[in-house]
């Protein structure tokens, strides 16, 4: 199963914008949503969104075959970095809980979904960064393997291996957390 971040109203092909402002105008929302899905918090996603474009200002990059792919990958990488740092601080749970929409508390289904999201984020930040990045790009952002390989500068085979290892490790983590009596707090 894969989910796609890309919307109909956003360009999927590149017009090679020449400045960061143009890129931000074209892909700012895409980057925000990519970060939001990983982080689950609008404020954190805003930080990542701004960091992505500030980095481009500081260190312009060229020869980008796919700006949506590149920017989504960068946003994902920065978001996972944040998850990992927050996991170390073991404090993000408060942010997430605070950021869950009120409607999520209204039904058991939504509560289960929120708990699943929490568990998967926790498991993601325990993966090797590259594996977590590939998994997120493929299964959360819906990118094709070839596009992931292009954006991450890995080979297609390497991406496939990362995806396989990530899925296996996540399964193990989720089973582990399911068998744990007391829920682990981030």
């Amino acid at each position: 199963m894969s989910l796609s971040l890309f919307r109909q109203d956003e360009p999927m092909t590149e017009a090679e914008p020449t400045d960061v402002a143009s890129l931000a105008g074209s892909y700012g929302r895409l980057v925000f949503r990519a970060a939001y899905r990983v982080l689950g918090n609008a404020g954190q996603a805003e930080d990542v969104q701004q960091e992505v474009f500030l980095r481009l200002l500081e260190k312009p990059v060229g020869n980008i075959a796919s700006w949506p792919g590149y920017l989504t990958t960068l946003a994902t990488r920065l978001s996972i970095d944040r998850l990992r740092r927050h996991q170390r601080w073991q404090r993000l749970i408060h942010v997430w809980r605070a950021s869950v929409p009120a409607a999520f508390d209204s039904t058991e289904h939504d509560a289960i979904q929120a708990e699943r999201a929490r568990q998967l984020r926790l498991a993601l930040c325990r993966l090797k960064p590259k594996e977590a990045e590939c998994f997120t790009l493929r299964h959360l952002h819906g990118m094709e393997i070839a596009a992931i390989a292009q954006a991450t500068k890995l080979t297609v085979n390497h991406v496939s291996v990362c995806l396989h290892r990530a899925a296996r490790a996540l399964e193990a983590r989720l089973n582990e957390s399911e068998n744990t009596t007391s829920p682990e707090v981030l």
Partner: protein
Amino acid sequence: MTTELSSKLSAHVSALDVTPSDAATDAAQRKLEARLSKMRSVAIVRRPWFGWAAAAATGCIVLALVMLPTSQGIAFATVQKHLRDFTTLSLTIEQRSQGIDMPTIHVRMNHDGDVRSDMGSATTTVVNPGEHRILTLLHDSHMAMLTPLPVIASAKPADNLAWLDAIRQFQGEAIRLPNQRTIDGRPTTGWALDTNGMNITLWADSDGLPRAVEINGGTLLSQRMHVSVDDPMDVSVFSTRVPVGYHLMAPDAK
């Protein structure tokens, strides 16, 4: 190699399919575009002096460490940008240790990398990369010391930005304070942070400009820092010329 997810893992992945509201997305986009429109699309000025200005660096790092990514209207990246793109930055650091007032440290710096640190009324240190030297003044004895700034200080500019990476790596949780304070005529929002046993309160204005920082390390040390960004600053404060009435001594003189 294909990767088929189990139904369980698929269910967890779908749980992350939370799309932000259009309002939140649009708000973020507006902030981003407003921020970028203010930015100068020029290379960031390298500051080769940071390794030589411990007090200034400490001030900046402490200041920046408390700017945590809570995004309560101000994104962390915005504050980082202020700290990198300032024309002038002035920090007045008041310290108190075990109930005793310590000398006030006044640090001034500019975008050229010049740094002046006045530690109470006793000592002044001026780091001037353009003149390739450091001036130290001992005011009580009216002694002055000039030290050449090693070439390596400007030969490895990337290393001197390592502190920025350190800031980027730092994360935590700050609690927004309910009340506002007016500092330098600007309404500011406060954040409280408890990190490594230190209680830190930061006040920043609506543009993300830091205005004041208060640090309380219990009975050991407390600091209060007043921050000014881009205030006019006379270049003469960064001169390494020995002032009239001061005796120049060699760096290794006793």
